[in-house]
């Protein structure tokens, strides 16, 4: 008996995987049904549906990049304090001092890549007409995921707290000031007043809500940190789960009828 077989027949191995190695047809079916991670997939699929030239694997790559971001992001959190005093220097130290120094690089390039792949995934879904019935709603969930991916990237952009960061966020968040009705410099904000007092001022408008202040400052850093590390990832994970569920329930990856 080879070492491999010995291991695969041991009680420990079998307690974890509950079935022999997937080398024959039966066990290849069983593995898909019993393994938690694999059960995201169906047991069998149409050959053309999983062809690389059909899906470009872009949804899968986006998901993988999301996982990479989660992992490297947690590692970065060990080294990073979101305060004006430390944020910049913690990032600087990552490069100069820490052993896992390329975690920041992987996290940043992974984030850029994820933005690109999510567009390309949408591009593919459009070009194969996969948003057509019965998959309309999954497309809508997809658009939400697209927005949240961009917001994840946007909120993360501030965290290094360097010149690039705060000015990019300043440019971006100035838009909120111009929100119709809800921005202190947007059309129609004067209409929201009570007994002569403006409800929307630059200390109570959409930009203020986003930044936690009139300018990009410590409160903004805190807000963006929480959005970036907790709030948005949680929502994205939930939506991805629904997205995958719906891919299966809508009949698997689209194919000609």
């Amino acid at each position: 008996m080879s070492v491999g077989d010995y291991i695969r027949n041991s009680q420990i191995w079998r307690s974890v995987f509950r079935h022999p190695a997937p080398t024959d047809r039966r066990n290849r079916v069983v593995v898909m049904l019993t393994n938690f991670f694999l059960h995201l997939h169906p047991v069998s699929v149409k050959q053309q549906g999983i062809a690389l030239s059909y899906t470009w694997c872009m949804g899968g790559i986006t998901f993988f990049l999301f996982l990479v971001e989660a992992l490297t992001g947690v590692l970065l959190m060990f080294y990073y304090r979101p305060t004006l005093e430390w944020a910049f220097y913690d990032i600087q130290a990552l490069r100069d001092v820490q052993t896992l120094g390329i975690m920041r690089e992987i996290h940043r390039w992974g984030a850029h890549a994820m933005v690109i792949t999510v567009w390309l995934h949408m591009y593919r879904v459009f070009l194969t007409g996969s948003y057509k019935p019965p998959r309309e709603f999954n497309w809508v969930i997809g658009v939400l995921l697209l927005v949240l991916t961009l917001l994840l990237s946007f909120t993360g952009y501030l965290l290094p707290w360097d010149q690039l960061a705060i000015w990019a966020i300043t440019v971006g968040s100035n838009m909120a000031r111009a929100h119709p009705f809800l921005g202190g410099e947007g059309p129609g904000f004067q209409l929201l007043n009570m007994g002569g007092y403006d409800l929307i001022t630059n200390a109570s408008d959409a930009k203020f809500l986003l930044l936690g202040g009139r300018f990009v400052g410590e409160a903004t850093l805190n807000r963006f940190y929480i959005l970036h590390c907790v709030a948005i990832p949680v929502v994205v994970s939930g939506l991805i789960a629904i997205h995958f569920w719906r891919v299966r329930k809508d009949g698997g990856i689209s194919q000609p009828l």
Partner: protein
Amino acid sequence: MNPHPDLTSSVIHGLGWYYLIVFFMNLYWTVRSYKVDGEFASGVPVVGGLPVAAVWACISSVLLMISVAHFTGTGSPDTFMIRLPEFFKNPVDAFFADPVVYFLGSVSLFVFMVVFREWWVKDSVAWSLLQASLIFMGLSMSDYDFRQIVGKPDNVPIVAMLFIVAFLTWIYFRRATDNDRRVAEGRPLFEQEDNEKVLVWPDLVYTELICMILLTALLIFWGIGLEAPLEEPASSVKTPNPSKAPWYFLGLQEMLVYFDPWLAGVVLPGIILGGLMAVPYIDFNKAGNGYYCFKDRWFAVSTFLFGFFPLWIALIVLGTFLRGPNWNFYGIYELWDVHKVKAANNVNLSEYVWSLFGGVPTGSDILTILKRECVGIVLVLGYFFVLPPLLGLTILRRFFVRMGVLRFLVFSNLILWMAVLPIKMVLRWSFSLKYIVGIPEWFFNI
């Protein structure tokens, strides 16, 4: 020492490797071409009867020589010969350093891509286009200013994205034209051939595993090779010029040139997202569900491609690579000179109109304001409220009948919103038009 050297010895070295890779790509293609392309027709002068591969062999050997020259040059980098000549750079900068030419160029490219799809998806054509763009990139890298902007760590993914998008678009049009032909001839679709059920283990899980390993390797190499940028610590008093949003929002930032923030930053993004979500509910066409095709969905696909290429990707490229200090437009080989001035003397529609009637009415009460802007207001209301029904009764009648009132109104409004940016661009360029409706008193400018 020149502070902005076009070439340094490390750049020359890097380009040597670059051309070596391009050489190997073309070597592969020579072999492939020898196997599949056959010979030139015997009637063609000079090359008649020669294998097509001979051309590729010539190109490959030139590339090899270029590459070797980069490694063996011993003189000072300033005298190295293989670089873009000024007589090429200057006209390119002069001609293209202009948003009008750039935007119209990207629209023409889009039209070309759709109309000549049968031609450019051919293997040899697509390959030639790829090689041309690689050589263009290589040569351009010998320019200091080009390298400055393209080589910025945060911009590297954008360059990569351009190549990937081009490649995937090639796949799309290739498979779509193939399927279009199949449909016309009554043959089964490509996706319907060999479409047996297969087990996910091993067919899919192994693909995924390999994909993950390759991606991990890519990210690690990328992470080691390219340092993430970290500039000076944040300072709220030192405003950088230009201040740019993150690159994926630069299409929106570019819209700020033409629209006020409430439109460019809030309403238009909202409409883009709402419009995307609405797509499945307004596209009533049943064809093309689950396979690549163009002919049977030409309207939907062209609209989407128009939004994706000229209005999104091209604007990101514009914002990233071509917008410099003061949001001025700079050529790809041009120095970002802070003092470049561009006279912007834009005029509101109301000023045009009232100059015919003896001057703009003054006063800040509601009635005067409305009177002042009445032409613009009528135009805008007409655009969004009168035009849709008119379109529905005339050229878009076919859609109106299939869609019903509500869906048609949503659809036509979305199409009109999509046209808003190009329209405003053209008005700006041709009439220096600032606002169609300009009511700064209420922050309401269109």
